[in-house]
């Protein structure tokens, strides 16, 4: 009996104007998405591999251990995600690369100076991407198509499912048959879901057919698996809105009123909540340091690190003054005096080499730590704001799709983590090579203290940006569970409301 209802509902929908229009609009958007992706993606991939090669060659060309430490592991670049057409995720705004944080040179005494080694720079947001004169618009990615249309179409397919039949009196007729209410409801649910999903699947296939003609977008097994999950998430999302439509339809007498209520719910949940809630949530969160405050705090910490160097310089000055009184020096020729002073100060500096090496390392540590903490505070704020926007299923789907496609904020955090991991490996590698050389002083951070044995280029660790299927699934899992729960809740709500309603 239930399949009878499903087929009847489904064929009713299939013949309707809304089915034709839905197919048309979904197909048009998906084709646009694919065509634009084909136009833009190859260029990005080409640029990425070019730059990665440059960095790799530069790193491999450094065979001296100190040079490796000073120039660092090079710039890290985010690989353009092959599924970028699914979710844009604000990639233009998020930093696409992380490089060196800068460098300094400090004088330790006459003719002697101390140089910094590589540290990881602060990944600044690309605010320039935002400040363009062109009018803003949402990118037509799958996220746009799914969040807006796969919630709007279910409303159009369900608003009259129960209230319309009740108005016409067919509902009473239907229930006069030996059929339970929940079977009828389930039949209507499945019928509407099929009617929404079939045009969607058709459009998805069209999109993928166009995309797979491109040789630059390599869709491997993992990518297909991710695509499958993405389609499942989308189906679940459509199901939620069908269930919501059935709830409202069962609770109201008039199909006109049902539609108005549903549309107002839709506008609030899908259009306004994702953006307004985020900003609203940020208002009540613990404030983070401003850029100015952060810079000041960092400076203060660095001053503390530099304290031993300052003391050493003062000591040196005193020593030089006591040994060569001012009356003594001017009598000598200028060059000779210079050489004498330099030799003397070199002696002092040599004695302090361990301190200097420690200072260089400490400096890097303090800079990286304060950057990390500041970033963590900012990211925590974003994560909390995102948690609050999850009240809207549209935002939940957006985050789930971003995670699955390997774009957006979670991907950015993952990229930062893998960069940090690589930096640690890179430093461990240097330390290991250093320990292997018995002739060296083992003072990492200054050229005199480090091994001078050449490093074989193939041994140097090279960064490669990779996203595995597990990474994407881990971050998306919470959102997927949330959606499934919501679907279950909405279906249950629909049953309860329909069972209690009068026909």
């Amino acid at each position, binding site marked *: 009996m239930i399949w009878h209802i499903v087929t009847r509902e489904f064929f009713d929908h299939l013949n309707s104007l809304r089915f034709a229009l839905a197919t048309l609009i979904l197909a048009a958007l998906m084709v646009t998405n694919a065509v634009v992706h084909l136009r833009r993606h190859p260029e990005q991939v080409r640029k990425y591999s070019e730059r990665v090669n440059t960095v790799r060659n530069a790193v491999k060309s450094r065979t001296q251990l100190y040079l490796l430490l000073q120039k660092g592991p090079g710039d890290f670049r985010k690989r353009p995600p092959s599924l970028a057409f699914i979710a844009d995720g604000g990639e233009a705004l998020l930093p696409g690369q992380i490089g060196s944080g800068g460098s300094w040179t400090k004088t330790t005494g006459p003719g002697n100076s101390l140089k910094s080694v590589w540290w990881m720079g602060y990944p600044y947001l690309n605010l320039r991407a935002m400040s363009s004169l062109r*009018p803003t618009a949402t990118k037509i990615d799958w996220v746009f198509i799914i969040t807006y249309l796969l919630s709007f179409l279910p409303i159009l397919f369900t608003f009259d499912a129960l209230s319309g039949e009740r108005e016409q009196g067919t509902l009473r007729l239907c229930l006069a048959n030996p059929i339970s209410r929940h079977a009828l409801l389930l039949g209507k649910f499945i019928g509407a879901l099929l009617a929404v999903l079939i045009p969607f699947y058709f459009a998805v296939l069209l999109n993928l057919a166009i995309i797979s003609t491109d040789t630059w977008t390599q869709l491997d097994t993992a990518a297909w698996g991710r695509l499958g999950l993405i389609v499942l998430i989308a189906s679940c999302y459509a199901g939620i809105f069908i269930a919501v439509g059935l709830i409202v339809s069962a609770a109201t007498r008039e199909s006109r009123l049902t539609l108005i209520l549903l549309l107002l719910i839709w506008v609030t949940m899908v259009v306004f909540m994702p953006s307004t809630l985020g900003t609203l949530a940020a208002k009540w969160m613990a404030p983070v340091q401003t850029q100015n405050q952060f810079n000041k705090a960092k400076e203060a910490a660095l001053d503390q690190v530099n304290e031993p160097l300052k003391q050493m310089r003062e000591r040196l000055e005193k020593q030089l003054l006591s040994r060569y009184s001012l009356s003594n020096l001017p009598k000598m020729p200028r060059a000779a005096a210079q050489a004498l002073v330099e030799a003397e100060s070199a002696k002092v500096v040599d004695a302090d080499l361990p301190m200097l090496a420690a200072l260089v390392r400490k400096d890097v540590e303090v800079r990286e730590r304060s950057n990390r903490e500041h970033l963590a505070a900012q990211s925590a704020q*974003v994560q909390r704001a995102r948690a609050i926007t999850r009240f809207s299923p549209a935002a939940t789907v957006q985050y789930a799709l971003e995670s699955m496609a390997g774009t957006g904020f979670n991907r950015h955090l993952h990229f930062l983590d893998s960069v940090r991991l690589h930096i640690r490996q890179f430093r461990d590698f240097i330390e290991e090579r250093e320990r292997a050389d018995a002739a060296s002083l083992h003072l990492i951070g200054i050229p005199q203290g480090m091994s001078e044995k050449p490093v074989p280029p193939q041994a140097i660790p090279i960064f490669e940006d990779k996203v595995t299927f597990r990474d994407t699934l881990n971050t998306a899992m919470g959102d997927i569970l949330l959606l499934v729960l919501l679907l279950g809740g909405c279906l249950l709500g629909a049953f309860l409301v329909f069972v209690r309603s009068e026909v």
Partner: protein
Amino acid sequence: MLRTLIRQELLVHLMSARFFAAVVITVLLVVANTFVLLGAYEERLANHSQREAVMRGKIADAPTYSSLRLAVARPPNPLSLFSAGLDTRFGSAVDIFHTQVPSLLRVGAPLSSKNPYLNLFSHIDLVFLFQVVLSLLALLFAYDTIAGDSEAGTLRLVLSHPVGRGAVLFAKYLAAMVCLLLPLLMSLLLVLIQCTLAPSLQLGPAEFLRIGGIVVTTVVYLSAFYLIGLLISTTTRRAATSLILCMFVWVVLVLVYPNWSRFAIDPIGDTNARRTSAYQQIDQIREEAEREERRFLANSPLTGKPPWFNIDFPESRRMFWRGGADQLIGKLRNTADPLVPHLQQYHAFMNQMHIRLAEKEGLVRQQMVAETELRRARWDERLMKLSPASLYSFATAAWAGTDVDGIVDYLRATRRYRRTYITYLQDKEAFASRQWFATNDGPVAWSDLPPFRFRPAAVGVYAQRALPELLVLCLINLGVFMGTFLIFVKMEV
């Protein structure tokens, strides 16, 4: 008769549940959003005044004329509450140098909130809210006007009275518009109350006039969507069909087309060639500057390297370089050095030359921006304006002064301020003075430097900018109404 018709339609609408739902939702959304928007505006205002204080401090700290790094910032626009446009996302800080004309490409980063990552969340303004919610409501009020009545048979009944079809149509239109205006006006009233309660937001009479302009545009937009719904309702036999058509038309016009056109169409294409040629021209101008400098130095007794030459400055700092001018702070050991007047002459000559060349370079840059960035932005707008929803958002941005023209206005003001600054320096004969680079005569008194003020243009200017879009919206109204009327007159009931 007309009055009876209008009264009856009005009553039907006002008593309906959809009217109630519409009012509640519109008001709730508007109040919640105004709350968020006011908070964001206050934060930007606080950032702005903090930045201004820093800039004032920098002016007071500059000991020589050349060492001043003058920068100005655009205050946040109070009307960005209605239409955020470029005001929240386009940069606001502009460096003012005598050797460089401000250009659109050289505007600093936008005034962001404390945590720039929060920019990942999109912001919405009141106009966007009206654009989405009110158009949807208009279509929901319109879809069954004719089709529903004709299905129920009441249309035939009404037309059996001695009343023209035009009058019936007009009565329906008028009654629905009144019902649609009620939620709009109520929510606007609440917005204004919230605005007056916020101490930081100061709205003058000119601003109120512009808000009035925004409201008028909103009404015209609303009416356009209602009429589109009416047209669909007259052309279809059944209310259900009319409803589905209305919904799809809404999705396409409001949601899909504006985003689609911006995403899929790149009207200008690659502009790199244009850019490269402009930068070549600029390089030529720079070379010319170097040639002139060499020619001057050949006739001058100064020896050594600029900017200090071989004059004895025991403490000297040279900060950064912009458009050929150094920022110099030095202290002469011997003020009676005979070379010092020559150094003064050198700086006077160099600065005058750089000012002249900067104007030339500025023209090249301005032309390049007009042919690349500005042209692209305008074409994007033109394409998007095929949808009435975009027409509405650009018209309101023009009223609020947050559109491209508003940014160009600001840039023009900064260019004017640069002229003021140069005149100020010339009046003080700063370029030829020793205080340009040396602190021997004490620090410069900057107290009489005229401050930068960016005033919004007159209301008429904004009205003029919004007029084309407003007119097109009115024409859409007129055209659709005529079409509906013709179809309705010929329709069989």
